[in-house]
């Protein structure tokens, strides 16, 4: 492979608004390489942009003339050249949720429906589209991740579509159905014997040892930026407006912080008017709620937990961006809520029954927490509210076992139908 530590300078790089990687803690700057930690203070690195350069290029018109994908916001994504992976990710429907709103007492509710993202039906297709494009720019030929679900599906599919080598690390006790969702794309699936802690440590060591693009380790600064596109699309689809309230599921906390960043970038560039009301609310499952626990305790210390919830996609015991997610919630005046497993199921059912959207358990968490925020009056009926539904229900069907009614069984004749079903009209 070519040397991954030398970024490829394309023609457009010179005019790009992507400036550097910058430490979130001490502010030191680094070249745009495959690195994620400040060598000086061990703080996480984040992409820094030159908003003057971007401001001269971007406009509502330039965005509207762009592709029908998240790449219409390329000027605000950390790639230097043209996109080469995940060309159809993003631009998912923003649904005016009148029926769900009615059930919750909200008059101005929207659902951002990432259950239909391309190609693997979750918001991870956004972050992986950006990570894969950047990994290719940096000269990597192998891409990797550690995941129990959505992330692995997305990395496997993107690698297949680009002809990259792919390694996916999973815990040894993962359900067969989830493993299959990766195997079909033919990555090397490595099943690691041991606890989640063991998998984490092994992956950290592999990340340091092998010249791979590990999307959520050394590529994480670029990867994470892909989530901003959820805010960009929301603002554009609302007619260039920033909502008053958003409800976002939290696992690592990255998605929540990037949605906030996305709205701020649009505001700073004058693409939307500032909405000082914007409150960012977080949603966690009670069986794994380290950020909620820190929020209610009033401290900004995240205490790691051992996850035990049906919302497996949100089951992150020691969230990397938990502290930053708390910070965003706090400064925006939002809240963090949590939902029990039965509340999560009810949330999934309510969303399906009112809006015809079949979300995975993470969507159930979001709807359940939205409901609590509405009931408490933290979200008022007239506030422009957006709930982020980030993954597809077909992936977590086992969570619904025993909670749906059975089909009505009849004999194959009209009288049996009349007798047993007996519809009114």
């Amino acid at each position, binding site marked *: 492979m070519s040397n991954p530590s030398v970024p490829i300078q394309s023609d457009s790089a010179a005019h790009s608004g992507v400036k550097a990687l910058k430490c979130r*803690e001490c502010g030191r700057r680094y070249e745009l390489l495959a690195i*994620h*930690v400040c060598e*000086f*203070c*061990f*703080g996480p690195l984040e992409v820094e942009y030159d908003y003057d350069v971007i401001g001269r290029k971007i406009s509502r018109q330039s965005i509207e003339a762009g592709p029908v994908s998240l790449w219409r916001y390329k000027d605000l994504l950390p790639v230097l050249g043209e996109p080469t992976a995940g060309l159809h990710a993003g631009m998912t429907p923003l649904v005016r949720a009148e029926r769900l709103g009615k059930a919750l007492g909200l008059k101005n509710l929207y659902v951002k429906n990432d259950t239909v993202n391309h190609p693997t039906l979750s918001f991870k297709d956004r972050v992986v589209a950006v990570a894969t494009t950047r990994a290719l720019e940096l000269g990597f030929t192998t891409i990797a*991740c*550690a*995941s*129990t*679900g*959505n*992330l692995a599906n997305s990395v496997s599919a993107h690698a297949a579509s680009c002809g990259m080598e792919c390694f996916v*690390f999973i*815990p040894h006790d993962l359900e067969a159905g989830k493993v299959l969702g990766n195997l079909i794309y033919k990555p090397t699936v490595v099943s690691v014997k041991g606890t*989640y*802690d063991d*998998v*984490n*440590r092994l*992956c*950290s*060591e592999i*990340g340091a040892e092998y010249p791979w693009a590990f999307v*959520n*380790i050394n590529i*994480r600064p670029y990867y994470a930026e892909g989530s901003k596109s959820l805010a960009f699309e929301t603002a554009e689809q609302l007619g260039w407006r920033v909502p008053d309230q958003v409800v976002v599921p939290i*696992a*690592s906390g990255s998605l929540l912080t990037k949605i906030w960043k996305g709205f701020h970038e649009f505001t700073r560039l004058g693409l939307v008017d500032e909405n000082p009301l914007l409150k960012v609310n977080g949603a966690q499952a009670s069986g794994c709620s380290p950020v909620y626990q820190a929020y209610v305790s009033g*401290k900004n*210390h*995240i*205490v*790691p937990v051992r996850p035990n919830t049906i919302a*497996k*996609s*949100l*089951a*992150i*015991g*020691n*969230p*990397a961006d938990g502290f930053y997610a708390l910070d965003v919630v706090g400064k925006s005046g939002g809240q963090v809520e949590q939902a029990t497993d039965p509340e999560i199921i009810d949330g999934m059912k309510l969303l399906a029954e009112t809006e015809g959207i079949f979300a995975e358990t*993470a969507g159930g968490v979001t709807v359940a927490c939205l409901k609590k925020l509405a009931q408490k009056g933290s979200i008022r009926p007239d506030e422009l509210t957006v709930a982020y539904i980030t993954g597809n229900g077909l992936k977590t069907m086992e969570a619904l076992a025993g909670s749906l009614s059975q089909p009505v069984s009849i004999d194959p004749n009209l009288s049996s139908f009349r007798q047993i079903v007996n519809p009114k009209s």
Partner: protein
Amino acid sequence: MAHLRIHLTFPEDRVRDPIIYEISKNFQVVPNIRRADVSDKTGWMELELVGDLSEIELTIDWLRKKGVHVDPLEKSILEG
């Protein structure tokens, strides 16, 4: 020589222990602290351990037995 970067979280009953001193005393590893935030109830610390891999692993086992939560610097890497 191996280098391992870790994130430690201390439970309430370990916050006051002289953990770093004890690491240096009991193991052939050099702990190099980069960031920390410790209050009287909880605390975390990010550091690098430098030494032979076997000694580093012994240090981590010892920390875990003391009830200190040890994660890689990246914390939870495994995602949904």
